[in-house]
């Protein structure tokens, strides 16, 4: 419940702040990778992150989103929102971000909740517990303050349909 209230607050603040842009203060870089097994010089199997050049159904894609404070003031109230890519389903339990609270949306980003609280409408007007396939967006609420020059990352994985 508290989370929901917090979300409303953030939305309100964004509306109020329109027109006071300092976009140069924060840089957000989103990269997609595919994990491939390679054999190293010692003949050992190891995994390597590569650009998603050859991607076919059931492949797993790792998204790494890096946010950096390029301004000279600490940034607070950081919220990163990432819609799930098309042709992809969220890999359950894969979202991660140090110092973040992670929540998910099943309604196109209108509302967010934790996996156990999310519901979607099923047949005949009934609701059922939402699963990872129902997620439309992932949100990371960074609980700390990002100092000037500092950067951090959030990640999640998808499976190609």
């Amino acid at each position: 419940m508290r989370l929901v209230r917090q979300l409303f607050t953030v939305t309100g603040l964004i509306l109020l702040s329109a027109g006071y842009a300092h976009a140069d203060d924060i840089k957000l870089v989103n990269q997609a990778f595919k994990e491939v097994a390679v054999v190293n010089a010692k003949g050992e199997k190891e995994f390597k992150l590569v650009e998603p050049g050859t991607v076919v159904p059931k492949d797993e894609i790792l998204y790494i989103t890096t946010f950096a404070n390029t301004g000279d003031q600490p940034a607070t109230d950081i919220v990163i929102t990432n819609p799930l890519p098309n042709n992809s389903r969220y890999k359950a339990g894969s979202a991660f971000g140090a110092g973040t609270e992670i929540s998910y949306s099943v309604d196109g980003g209108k509302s967010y909740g934790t996996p156990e609280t999310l519901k979607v409408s099923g047949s005949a007007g009934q609701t059922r517990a939402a699963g990872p396939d129902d997620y439309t967006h992932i949100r990371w609420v960074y609980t700390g303050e990002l100092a000037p020059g500092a950067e951090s990352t959030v990640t999640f994985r998808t499976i190609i349909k």
Partner: protein
Amino acid sequence: MKTLNRVRHLAGVWLVGFLSLLGTSAVLADAGDTISNQATINYSVGGVPQAAVNSDDDGNPANGLNPTTFVEDRLVNFVVAEAGVIGYSTGAPGQTGVALQFTVTNTSNSTLDFLLAAIDTDLDTHNGGAADTIDANNVQVFVESGATPGFQPTEDTAVFIDELTEGNAIEVYITGDIPAGAVNADTAGYALVAQIAAGGAATTEGAAITNDDSGNVSPAGTYSNGGTVVAAGTPNTVADDPATVQTVFNDPAGALAEDTDSTGAAQDAAQNGQASDSDAFQVVAAVLSVAKTSVVISDPVNGTTNPKAIPGAIVEYTITITNGAGASTAQAVVVSDSLAAEIAALRLAYETATFNAQGTCPGGGAPNPCGILVTAPDINAGVAQAITNTNGDADGGDFTTDIVSMNVGDLDAGESATVQFRVLVQ
């Protein structure tokens, strides 16, 4: 509460399963689709909220804040499997258009054509891959038209699979004629090999795709009942490129040695753009055996007590025809036994009136005596039937030109018929 939750959960699973059944082809993302993603960050500086910032793909905002994208590549995956009758498809000697049935299922993420070849493996997959014994004649491959299930020579005339969409399957037949000289239990083994070809143009046979972008190639082959000859692929290794659609062969290997590739010389390998499964024809012929026995019924001296074959004795012949177990039905079996030589030499004469009292003689005896007693599954419901020996009448039995002839009807596997008649020793 726990139970309730479980029920809800099950209902959800059922619903998801149902939906995915309905939309099999829509579930897979198509090769060539661009998968795009852009994150957004909201933040505050000094307690003042700032405008949201979109993510960039390369960290260089100067060329625009671009979404992170890549193109889904073409994964070639498909299965050939024996279908219909699992086991031998049977045919009688001389039978034409006997069909081995298979399905080809496209589990790729792209619509594809498939070229087809029937490979004579000379191996019997239903006998552990042992050598087969014959070859079928006029072996061809045809694709089910969808009009009538099962092989229909007039309908199923396509020789390649056209535009098979992802997630869907189609029936394919290898047809052949059983040689007239084949004998019961002969077998002829064949493998159906499907080779991927470019889809996209309906009713047009797509060009074979004989290499992927990871160094995998297809062997050479001849398809479409000899109409299309395809050379072996040459390896092509292309660096991964997120911006182009690349092809990846992921087809399975043939499960058995007789599941050959298009050359027929080797077991189908994985990731060669081909898939294969084997099946075999089996010949089921009628296996008729004939036995003839005789017994002396009476003689003029001893009567019926220990009669001897002396002049004036009556001898009964019994001819037994049997079709072997597991054989095909023998139709309109005619038994004939010539006594012309014996009669000409005045050693024997037909005894024509003696079955009148047995098995209801239709003419009631003279002037149409019943000289033949037949016991056959298709005659008089299997009960012994005395019939006239008049030529050309409806009962199918006569003594014309001193040959006993009798049509005993059809004999299924394991059935037998007997024909009995009597002669007088001269």
